[in-house]
């Protein structure tokens, strides 16, 4: 583990509670770690476990899933379904040797700007402690020998354009 390593964290959140709560954190000018990239979905019910796998395949060191507290779901039950899905999925990850702490789950309501800050900081901190997801990175490397680790996306060489478009 290394303290000055900056983890890459993908966050999948629901529009109605967590995304709005994160907006509130902003309007309240709360400060938190910049490591999280938020992807907005209507509901945690929409968050398929394969999104998590995809995130790891794309180099995420950790994943955060967040939605409405039980009984607050805008769609009544989406979060309940998600809760079961990820309770089981975590067990699968654990069983296959992936530290379940790399997939974090939280309830953050539209009123909990401060909680969003705390969650982001805590998760970033925890993933930082776990260190880079080297095991998965290695798989990626072995699978895609041609994919450059940090091609800054912009300034893409013609070759890669072709690579990626096909």
């Amino acid at each position, binding site marked *: 583990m290394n303290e000055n390593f900056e983890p890459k964290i993908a966050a999948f959140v629901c529009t109605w509670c967590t995304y709005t709560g994160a907006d509130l954190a902003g309007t309240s000018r709360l400060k938190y770690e910049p490591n999280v990239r938020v992807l907005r979905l209507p509901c945690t019910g929409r968050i398929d476990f394969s999104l998590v796998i995809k995130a790891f395949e794309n180099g995420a060191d950790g994943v955060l899933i967040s939605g409405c507290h039980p009984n607050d779901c805008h769609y009544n039950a989406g979060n309940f379904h998600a809760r079961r899905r990820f309770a089981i999925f975590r*067990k699968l990850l654990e069983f*296959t040797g992936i530290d379940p702490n790399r997939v974090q789950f*939280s309830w953050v309501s539209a009123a909990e700007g401060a909680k969003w800050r705390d969650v982001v900081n805590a998760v970033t901190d925890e993933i930082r402690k776990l260190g880079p997801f080297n095991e998965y990175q290695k798989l990626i490397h072995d699978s895609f020998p041609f994919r450059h680790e940090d091609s800054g996306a912009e300034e893409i060489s013609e070759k890669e354009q072709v690579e990626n478009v096909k």
Partner: protein
Amino acid sequence: MSNDIRQIAHALLSEGKVSSVIGYAEGSLKGRVQTLIAHTAREAEKFIFNENCVNNLAVYLTKSYGLINKDKPAAVFLKPCDIKSVTALIQEHQLRREDVFIIGLSCQGVKNGNVMAGKCMGCSIHNPQYYDAIVGETVEEKEPGISDPFAKVKEIENMTTQERWDFWMEQFDKCIRCYACRQACPLCYCEECIVDKTQPRWIESSSHPIGNLSWHLIRAFHLAGRCTGCGECDRACHQNIPLSLLNMKMGKEIFELYGYRPGMDTEAKPPLTEFKMEDSEEFIR
């Protein structure tokens, strides 16, 4: 016993009660059996049942084999454990109850190769519970051959995270993505498997580490709360990847968390399609 089997198959076909009878027949190799799908009473003479009949014939009831949805039901010989698969198929609307005629076989356990099959060692139901007809006298119910069917699962659970990772990476590394596991599984009936989906492609199709890991994770999860533990995936895998361990683990967790056992009730709601307010959420911040 084989006599009763032929009789009932013969009767069903000659009386035109069923469109076909799916059962076991002597295989070309000694000690091996093959699947026989009889459409005429004459063919029924070939049916047998013995300790080598390890395979789960329920898979032939999936739509792709085209044996169901006829004007008459298809009859099938099933061991008590195989019946669970049929229950699941009915529960998941892949099979109408009236489209199948279940001939239950009492079973003392069967062999995989020349050793008793793993699923039989943990088995505690030896007589059919859900059937249209039953052949063979009921055998006495006995405790599982082994104390703990989950022993191997627990062994892995007790490894360190790193050890587990290494263990599975070694296993998955062997995978050549032939999808025999999918083919053999009665519950892998999707008309288009997610792995064949290209827009977008969720699972890398080539058998490199990333693709293999994703495939086996997704396969295991898609069977969570559904797998009835017939073990056909294990048998089908020429690379000897212990696939059923993943399914067993899922089954274990589902039962511990939600008290659900697959293949028991055609009316039950699959555990991942429902929820309870009081479901555990210790892992949620």
